[in-house]
């Protein structure tokens, strides 16, 4: 019989075996596998946030970076948000994208930072931050995104905000969308985007 009953096969370095101190030390290992395992073992532990935050600033392996962000995401507190915010300014698009995805999954913790991010002097940061409103309660997301597009001068930031509003916006967003379309009447795409957003939100033909 070629089929044999194998059953489970436990990890040799089961997370229960090593204490938190060993994992914290392993975060600084030169071996990426060791750092990966450490980040995975520390996931969700609030006391490990400072160490995870520090490890994130120097991590170069994309896989380990993902695991560190997942670990912070599972804590989901203010300190873990703060640890990931600098990644929104990273030169590497992969870092920015990974941070956005992790932050998007912790909308309650991110909410207090959103207004601040929308006021950032870097239009790339404002643009990325619009995605963070996507998983927030619709009334609050609508309020924040509308406040952004009221004064935003960069068409691509407005376009990104409108994209999120198309999914999460309430009818309260319609006046701001109309104004934005007027303001950028001669810019390609924006009037189209605003028109589509209004149609989807109101449920009526564009």
């Amino acid at each position, binding site marked *: 019989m070629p089929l044999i009953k194998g059953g489970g096969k436990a990890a040799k370095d089961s997370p229960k075996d090593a204490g938190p101190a060993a994992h914290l030390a392993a975060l600084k290992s030169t*071996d990426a596998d060791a750092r990966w395992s450490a980040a995975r073992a520390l*996931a969700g532990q609030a006391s490990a946030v400072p160490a995870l935050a520090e490890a994130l600033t120097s991590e170069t392996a994309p896989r380990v970076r993902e695991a560190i962000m997942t670990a912070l995401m599972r804590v989901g507190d203010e300190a873990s948000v703060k640890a990931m915010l600098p990644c929104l300014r990273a030169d590497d698009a992969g870092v920015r994208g990974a941070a956005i995805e992790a932050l998007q999954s912790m909308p309650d913790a991110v909410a207090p930072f959103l207004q601040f991010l929308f006021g950032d002097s870097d239009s790339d940061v404002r643009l990325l931050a619009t995605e963070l409103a996507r998983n927030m309660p619709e009334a609050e997301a609508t309020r924040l995104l509308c406040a952004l597009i009221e004064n935003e001068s960069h068409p691509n930031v407005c376009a990104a905000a409108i994209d999120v509003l198309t999914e999460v916006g309430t009818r309260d967003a319609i006046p701001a969308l109309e104004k934005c379309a007027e303001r950028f009447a001669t810019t390609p795409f924006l009037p189209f985007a605003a028109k589509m957003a209004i149609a989807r939100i109101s449920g009526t033909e564009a």
Partner: protein
Amino acid sequence: MRMAPRDGPVSQITPEEVQRFCEFLYRRTGMSFSESKRYFIDRRLDERMAATGSPSFQSYFSLLRADAEHEIEHLINSFTVNETYFYREDAQLRCMTEDMLAGIVSRKPEGASIRIWSVPCSTGEEPYSIALWLMENWPQVDAYNIEIVGSDIDTRALKAAAEGIYGDRALMRLSPDIIGRYFTKLDEGSYQIDEGLRGSIEFSRINLIDSADMAQQRDFDLIFCRNVLIYFDDASRRVAAENLYDCLTPGGYICLGHSESMSRISPLFNVARFPDAIVYQKPEAKNG
């Protein structure tokens, strides 16, 4: 069930609302429907709005976005065929014997163990299908020790899997010859799978997003993880992907359901293209 003429006005939902819904569904699950499926979408939406007591599309959409009462799960169920039967999605089984196993055994000495995991395995059709398919279609089957594990979060399903009793519908894709050789007829329309097969597959309870649970399952060469990640939210998917990564040997493969894409979930795996299926591979290189 409400009967409505196919070409009449069947729904109060406007085209714009359907579009909004479809974009959300696509972003959230990866499922996408063309315009020609409008009737199908309307019917499902009407059903779910009625079931949740939503007076308008807007109120239903709010409830859906907030995933109140696990509405995303109910919605996905209404859009998918939740039937499980032997040799379902057999392109991946063919890909296993035509291509993936060749890559797996190239890294192993003859006589070594090959570990295959069916998770979630539900009532056992998938792990038994893997076993049957291997015995019927892989010439090298006797040269290796093949360990098949089936896991699920539902202990009742696992009990049924271990019993291995199935009705006609579950067996519809199997030839009479295979049924004759591997099943015992118990009753009219009731068959039990061969005792040897039942005894050779280990069934265990697992929660894909529980890292401690998942640490009990290591060194798999091939994982079938079909039609479950689609139900998870982004955060749970991310955790499940990291857990699955640790359960695979370097170079090992993972197969998802046909409407699922690991690329929507995690960059941990490489895409591997074979003639029969697109699957995902854990990189062989240790770092990075």
